[in-house]
């Protein structure tokens, strides 16, 4: 066979393996890229041809996801996690160190095509960073000795399978367990409960439990299930949102790693309750290392009759679960964008209403719940709603898993009954010098020490679980700037205020952070932020200005400190804008420069 036919052969085989189904497009592209390292125009056209869909659609999907490459990429693709918590642990220095060792520029592929080194949004290893991904597999606890070794392995072109396993070790760091993590759960017990008592009784327990969406939005889970159960439609779906993209959260990773059966049981239970026979786990691409073990769990459940055609021997109880991998798109954590992605499209949030419970996956009624929600539901089916509701507050029943990271002695997973104070959490994790917390991730809220007596619950501080601690030796604006970049990178580009607003906001934050801003710029950020909060199409854009707006309120001194004494400063560096002309003309006379004392004239001192 001619060598040029190899890619075509590969594409054909992969498409066949996925049943030639266009809804599997994202999975197909991932697999093709695994073989070919990048997706050339010819490859994409080939995929389109095999799937009988338009080449533009395929290219649109390929261009949307960060982990899909439409330009050549190294055989070893190293991406440093660039969350603020990684930065606190010194990832920038390590990034440049590795680049130097490998002789490669950040974001570029080495000329020999062997390696590319870049950055990516938070990989969910905040309690064991600095972290990175190599060809999509998580690397943890990076330090210089480890990077020396990695450089050798890359230069020696040693296959990943032969790299030391400790490089890939992901520990769970469960520091505090309550009813979800702390009590034994017998596989199949929730499914036996629903068979014995019937879906209505389980729904009643769900209502009693008061369980709310643990992804952070807090919608009553029972209401979702009931709405979907009652929605007209023969075919229904259960979707587990394991696209844990909010920087600073990693509790779903731990649940999928240590409690996968509990989560699968919750999904299967949901399937029985709403009348669905198919479930999907949408697992974020950063957690691909979990895939083999999750597949093994699913297989074992099929073998013991907890999944498949006749669960627990009941031929009317059929349910199976398929795992889809994301490919680096935070917006897919939004449930309707996630569904679009599951359908093989680029992840743009849908217009709502209609909601997924009536028009979800393939427009059929669908329940989308967070990993933790399904785990809790399984327990509720066994232990009862009242048992769950005995913990927590009036409006927030049960417990919440928090992902602790940043400046604390014991980062990791902490399970608390809802209502716990921020102060208590800080004491438990050994954060003795906290000046502020980024609660619920960049999309959540930044709070200062004045608010440490606030309680974590839907009535007060709602959270999906991210809890990043900033000590007094940190500059809050480092975080704000990091988050501003994050939102620019993750905006899907659909609506104007998010697509454009995130970039405008990043530029203003950068201007302030580098000491070139004035009070005028602070006011500009406020105005822009307020427009974005109300005008954006989905939650991503609506929450994108939160770090800026919160820090302006909670940490005004962090901004004030950087203010110029002038009333106005240009949007760009005027003298630097002459540099190109200086070089082209070779001029160095006094008039070839714009000096500060000349510029201050117009800055209205």
């Amino acid at each position: 066979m001619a060598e040029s036919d190899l890619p075509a052969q590969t594409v054909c085989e992969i498409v066949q393996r996925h049943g030639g189904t266009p809804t599997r497009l994202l999975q197909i592209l991932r697999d093709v890229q695994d073989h070919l390292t990048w997706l050339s125009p010819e490859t994409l056209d080939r995929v389109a041809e095999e799937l009988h869909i338009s080449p533009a659609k395929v290219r649109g999907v390929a261009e949307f996801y960060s982990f899909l490459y439409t330009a050549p990429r190294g055989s070893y693709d190293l991406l440093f996690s660039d969350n603020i918590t990684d930065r606190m642990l010194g990832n920038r220095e390590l990034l440049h160190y590795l680049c130097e060792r490998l002789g490669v520029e950040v974001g570029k592929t080495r000329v020999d095509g062997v390696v590319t080194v870049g950055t990516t949004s938070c990989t969910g290893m905040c309690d064991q960073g600095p972290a990175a991904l190599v060809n999509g597999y998580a690397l943890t606890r990076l330090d210089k000795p480890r990077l020396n070794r990695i450089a050798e392995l890359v230069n020696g072109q040693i296959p990943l399978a032969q790299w030391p396993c400790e490089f890939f070790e992901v520990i769970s760091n469960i520091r505090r367990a309550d009813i979800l993590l702390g009590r034994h759960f017998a596989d199949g017990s929730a499914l036996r409960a629903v068979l014995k008592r019937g879906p209505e009784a389980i729904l009643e327990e769900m209502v009693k439990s008061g369980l709310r969406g643990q992804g952070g939005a807090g919608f009553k889970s029972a209401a979702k299930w009931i709405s979907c159960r009652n929605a007209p439609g023969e075919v229904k779906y259960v979707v587990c949102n394991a696209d844990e993209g909010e920087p600073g959260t990693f509790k779903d990773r731990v649940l999928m790693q240590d409690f996968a059966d509990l989560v699968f049981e919750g999904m299967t239970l949901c399937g029985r309750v709403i009348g669905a026979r198919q479930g999907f786990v949408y697992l974020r691409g950063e957690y691909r290392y979990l895939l083999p073990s999750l597949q093994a769990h699913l297989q074992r459940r099929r073998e013991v009759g907890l999944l498949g055609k006749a669960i627990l021997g009941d031929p009317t109880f059929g349910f199976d679960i398929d795992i889809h991998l994301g490919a680096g798109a935070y917006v897919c954590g939004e449930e309707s964008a996630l569904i679009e992605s599951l359908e093989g499209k680029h992840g743009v949030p849908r217009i709502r209403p209609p909601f997924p419970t009536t028009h979800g996956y393939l427009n059929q009624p669908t329940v989308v719940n967070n990993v933790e929600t399904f785990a809790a539901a399984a327990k509720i089916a066994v232990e009862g709603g009242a048992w769950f509701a005995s913990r927590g507050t009036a409006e927030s029943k049960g417990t919440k898993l928090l992902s602790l990271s940043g400046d604390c002695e014991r980062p990791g997973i902490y399970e608390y009954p809802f209502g716990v104070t921020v102060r208590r959490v800080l004491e438990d994790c050994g954060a003795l010098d906290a000046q502020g917390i980024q609660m619920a991730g960049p999309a959540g809220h930044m709070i200062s020490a004045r608010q440490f007596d606030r309680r974590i619950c839907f009535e007060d501080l709602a959270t999906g679980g991210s809890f990043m601690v900033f000590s007094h030796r940190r500059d809050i604006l480092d975080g704000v700037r990091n988050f501003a970049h994050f939102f620019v990178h993750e905006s899907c580009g659909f609506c104007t205020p998010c697509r454009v607003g995130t970039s405008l906001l990043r530029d203003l934050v950068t201007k302030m952070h580098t000491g070139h801003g004035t009070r005028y710029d602070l006011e500009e950020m406020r105005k822009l932020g307020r427009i974005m909060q109300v005008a954006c199409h989905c939650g991503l854009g609506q929450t994108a200005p939160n770090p800026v707006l919160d820090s302006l309120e909670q940490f005004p001194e962090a901004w004030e400190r950087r203010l110029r004494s002038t009333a106005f400063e240009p949007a760009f560096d005027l003298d630097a804008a002459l540099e190109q002309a200086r070089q082209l003309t070779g001029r160095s006379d006094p008039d070839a420069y714009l000096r500060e004392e000349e510029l201050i004239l117009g800055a209205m001192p």
Partner: protein
Amino acid sequence: MSADRSFTLDGRRVPFQDGQTIMAAALAAGVYIPHLCFNPEFAPHGSCRVCLVKVNGRVQAACTTPAAVGQAVQNETGELREIRRGILQMLFVEGNHVCPACEKSGACQLQAVAYYVGMLAPHYTHFYPRRPVDASHPEAVIDFNRCILCELCVRASRDVDGKNIFAVQGRGIQAHLVVNTPSGKLGATDFSVTDKAAQVCPTGAILTKHRGYEIPIGQRLYDRKPISVVGDVATLAESKGGRRHE
């Protein structure tokens, strides 16, 4: 249809039919709500965010929000005008909109809506993106500098013309309109100036060649009267409904 199936729009009672959005009901009643990505002949898209109104105190897009009995909808308020102006300003700095050098000027919806919301200047820092002009087609030209990603051409070509010539690719601020051919050139497609896609662009991004500046300044669509008076709301009221491509 019972008489009380209505909501209020700036205090005025607007009747609606089941399934209608606030925008559709307002249009049918002859009330203008500023919009760009919305076109009465197409299903709503909801991306430009210019049609934001306040529904029972909450800001929502009129083109995608279903009308409901008793809703109190605000449209012409200072607050909304300011938000809309901000969004228009974002669109102006995101692309390269050089009105004095554009044939669409005077009949451009982007410009007319900006006039309507009182935008005097783009306010924000300009991006000055580098984007191509595609003049490869004998009868039409695409100036990507003027594209605001409303996807009307995408929808028209796919849903009405059945040609699927346009698509949007890329993420975030990198999102851009593309022509669906290997060369990316319009000349390589079966695009025709009689296509619906050739007629729906709210800016000067897609233009018919050889017809520039036919109408003298002062007599162009939006020269004398605002878009609220001479725009689609007026023509729609005349034709009592108009078609709609789902």
